[in-house]
């Protein structure tokens, strides 16, 4: 009975979103207040209904209702309770329901916090969000129904994919989706502005915090995914340029460009058309990401065995969203007025460079990700694009970005003597170069990358500090949350650079056969393999390894890498044993027993063991966390809220 309630709630949500997509938009065109006023209640009703459906599915999982096909396929009576909650988004149907819930959540939030905006703007924005909801809810209902019954019910479910039975997986998808779907807000505002034919800086100011928050969540989502891959896949890598990683990275890059271009448009009125285009691109790339992951066209660790009807549906949906909004852009964008003019040496120019570099990086990733699909379609053979392609071009594009980064905040809008920021930053540039040189000569291995990491990071950090100092030195000049957010995010880049480049340069990795009692030395550490014992987990049997880590003959820690065999399906999972520290991780993963296959006692013999020493690897995620924090802090700036309230009301009175 309960699943049918969820089903009905979903269908009602679709009907409500149809209402939300049509009446307010038509009302805004014709100036009918009664039609426009439908938008807000419809948004709340839709949120309530989707939430109801989501709760029903959660209850079905917790109660282990194996008559629901989706539950039977992704749960098992042995599954620990906490993972029964998170199994809801463990596979295709449920994760789309989460997508729809988050979309409804963002829509509800916009409806709630937009009370001070003009009615037409709210009606248009909620109407556009309603259109997106219609697309997603019909996708959910017609191609991926999570409430489909399995009758007669099976006695036992197939179990959640063991890779997903992990704390990181609890928060990775919701964070990522909050980011992906969050870009719907700037998108809806951009489309509303296009329909209206003009872009008001006050509304734009209102959307800026939303973009920042969405981008912050996306940053966290990607970082958690990377951290999860690091400890769960047992390869010790943190980024693989896997198509699905790329799919989430593209909206991130464009989102970062959008943040900066929105700031220019809001403050100076320039780049109006460009900002709108970026807002469309960021959301379209989020949709493309969903399409790439869900359609099964890509060979990737994330790909599910998928139904071609789903791929076709998303492809058509994508074509409508991208095609429709670009057509609207072509028709309406030329109407936007031009902003204040700016000189070649100005903050606008620097931010333009930032945008060009970020968008080029996104284009490069897009090309590398879609090229195999293109080649396949043109019958050029089955190819894959290797990580060196991405690595080479990404470093090439990001180097100028890091070099220009400290100049941005120190350069004035409109016109600046180039000598002024140069003079302010010159001593710090020299210091950064000296630090890089010191790193070059002291690095035990990979001197070039180490030097680049140290110098680049010092440059970004010192340049940002120079800006903070300038602000505090100036009398009576405020340090706003917006500036604090920028400072945090740019510091995050400095921290990330240390992590990414130093772990690349200083990483030590060995794969060795180890017999119980044997000791090997890797780098400064010695590892004594104490053997493997069999233990029983809630829904798996585990070969639990004991590895004593020593440094200078003194014990550092005892690591427990695991090899788990899950009871249902017999999947084997690696759990790495990690000793983490600020300056590096020691990482041990079990491979497989090396004894003869017919030896019943082989688990007690020698094992293949993978040992990594990863200096500064934590800094990668710490840097990402700082960037995300920067996005959130920026959104707190009162300027984004207080001013439009007054301006909007005075305008209404007038």
């Amino acid at each position, binding site marked *: 009975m309960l699943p049918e309630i969820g089903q009905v709630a979903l269908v009602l949500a679709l009907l409500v979103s149809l209402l939300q997509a049509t009446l307010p938009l038509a009302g805004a065109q014709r100036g009918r207040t009664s039609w426009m006023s439908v938008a807000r209640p419809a948004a709340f009703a839709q949120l309530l209904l989707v939430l109801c459906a989501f709760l029903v599915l959660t209850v079905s999982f917790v109660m282990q209702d194996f008559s629901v096909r989706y539950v039977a396929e992704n749960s098992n009576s042995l599954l620990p309770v906490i993972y029964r909650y998170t199994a809801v988004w463990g596979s295709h149907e449920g994760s789309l329901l989460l997508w729809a819930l988050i979309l409804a959540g963002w829509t509800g939030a916009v409806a709630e916090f937009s009370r001070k905006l003009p009615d037409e703007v709210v009606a248009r924005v909620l109407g556009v969000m309603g259109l997106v909801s219609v697309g997603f809810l019909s996708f959910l209902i017609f191609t991926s129904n999570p409430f489909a019954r399995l009758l007669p019910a099976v006695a036992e479910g197939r179990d959640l994919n063991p*890779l997903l039975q992990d704390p990181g997986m609890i928060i990775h998808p919701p964070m990522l989706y909050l980011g992906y779907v969050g870009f719907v807000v700037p998108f809806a505002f951009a489309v509303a502005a296009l329909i209206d034919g003009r872009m008001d800086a006050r509304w734009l100011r209102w959307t800026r915090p939303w973009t920042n928050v969405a981008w912050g969540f996306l940053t966290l989502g990607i970082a958690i995914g990377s951290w999860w891959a690091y400890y769960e896949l047992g390869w010790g890598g943190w980024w693989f340029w896997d198509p699905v990683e790329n799919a989430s990275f593209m909206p991130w890059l464009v989102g970062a460009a959008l943040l900066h271009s929105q700031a220019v448009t809001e403050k100076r009125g320039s780049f109006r058309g460009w900002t709108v285009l970026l807002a469309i691109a960021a959301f379209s790339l989020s949709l493309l990401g969903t399409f790439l992951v869900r359609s099964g066209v890509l060979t990737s660790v994330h790909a599910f065995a998928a139904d071609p009807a789903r791929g076709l549906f998303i492809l058509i949906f994508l074509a409508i969203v991208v095609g429709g909004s670009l057509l609207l852009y072509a028709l309406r964008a030329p109407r936007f007025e031009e902003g204040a003019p700016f000189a070649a040496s100005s903050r606008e120019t620097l931010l333009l460079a930032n945008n060009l570099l970020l968008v080029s990086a996104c284009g490069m990733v897009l090309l590398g990700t879609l090229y195999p699909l293109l080649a396949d379609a043109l019958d050029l053979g089955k190819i894959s694009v290797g990580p060196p392609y991405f690595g080479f071009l990404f470093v090439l594009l990001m180097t100028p970005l890091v070099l220009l980064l400290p100049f941005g905040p120190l350069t004035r809008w409109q016109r600046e003597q180039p000598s002024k920021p140069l003079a302010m930053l010159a001593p710090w540039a020299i210091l950064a170069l000296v630090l890089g040189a010191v790193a070059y000569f002291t690095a035990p291995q990979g001197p070039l990358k180490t030097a680049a990491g140290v110098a680049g990071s010092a440059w970004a950090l010192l340049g940002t500090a120079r800006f903070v100092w300038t602000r505090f030195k100036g009398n009576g000049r405020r340090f706003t949350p917006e500036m604090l957010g920028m400072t945090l995010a740019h510091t995050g880049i400095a921290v990330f650079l240390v992590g990414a480049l130093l772990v690349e340069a200083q990483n030590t990795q060995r794969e060795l056969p180890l017999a119980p009692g044997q000791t090997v030395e890797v780098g400064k550490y010695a590892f004594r393999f104490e053997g493997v014992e069999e233990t029983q987990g809630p829904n798996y049997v585990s070969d639990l390894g004991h590895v004593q880590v020593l440094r200078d003959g003194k014990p550092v820690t005892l690591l427990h890498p695991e090899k788990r065999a899950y009871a249902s399906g017999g999947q084997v999972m690696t759990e790495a044993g990690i000793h983490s520290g600020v300056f590096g991780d020691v990482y041990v993963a079990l491979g497989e027993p090396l004894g003869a296959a017919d030896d019943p006692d082989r688990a007690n013999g020698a094992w293949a063991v993978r040992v990594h020493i990863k200096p500064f690897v934590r800094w990668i995620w710490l840097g990402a966390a700082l960037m995300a924090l920067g996005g959130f802090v920026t959104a707190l700036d009162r300027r984004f809220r207080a001013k439009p309230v007054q301006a909007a009301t005075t305008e209404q009175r007038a």
Partner: protein
Amino acid sequence: MNPIRKRRLWMIAALVVASAIAVTLVALALQRNVAYLYTPAEVLGGQAGEAVSAGTAKFRLGGMVAEHSFKREEGSMEVRFAVTDGDAQLPVSYTGILPDLFRENQAVVATGHMRGDTFVAEQVLAKHDETYVPKEVADKMGLAHQKHGVQTPADAAADAP
């Protein structure tokens, strides 16, 4: 020429040069880092090309791990197995730890190159969903199956004089 127009002209010229450099770099990077997927039959039959059979080109080998082909020297990190596409088998050697889902009769994609008659793999990937066969491998295996199967009407029509 007025100064605004002159500036625009310079900007356009700069843009053209920048995009030319970008296109060249991207094309070069792509060309050097693209790896083709071949099945054992294509490698042994020579369709994969001279560079692949001679061992100079790096490529990806796709197929199923042949039954009873997996061997490991006791206590050694080196493993040997065969990859099959139903038509032909190719022996593979790999030194290192195999992925968790590596198993006989499962789809596998290995990156490496030929050395003599053996494919020396640098990286072996097996996919994490047991019902999932990588699409590109499925496509290629499908081709092999078609060849062995009954002629489809289209083939028969094409064969008719």
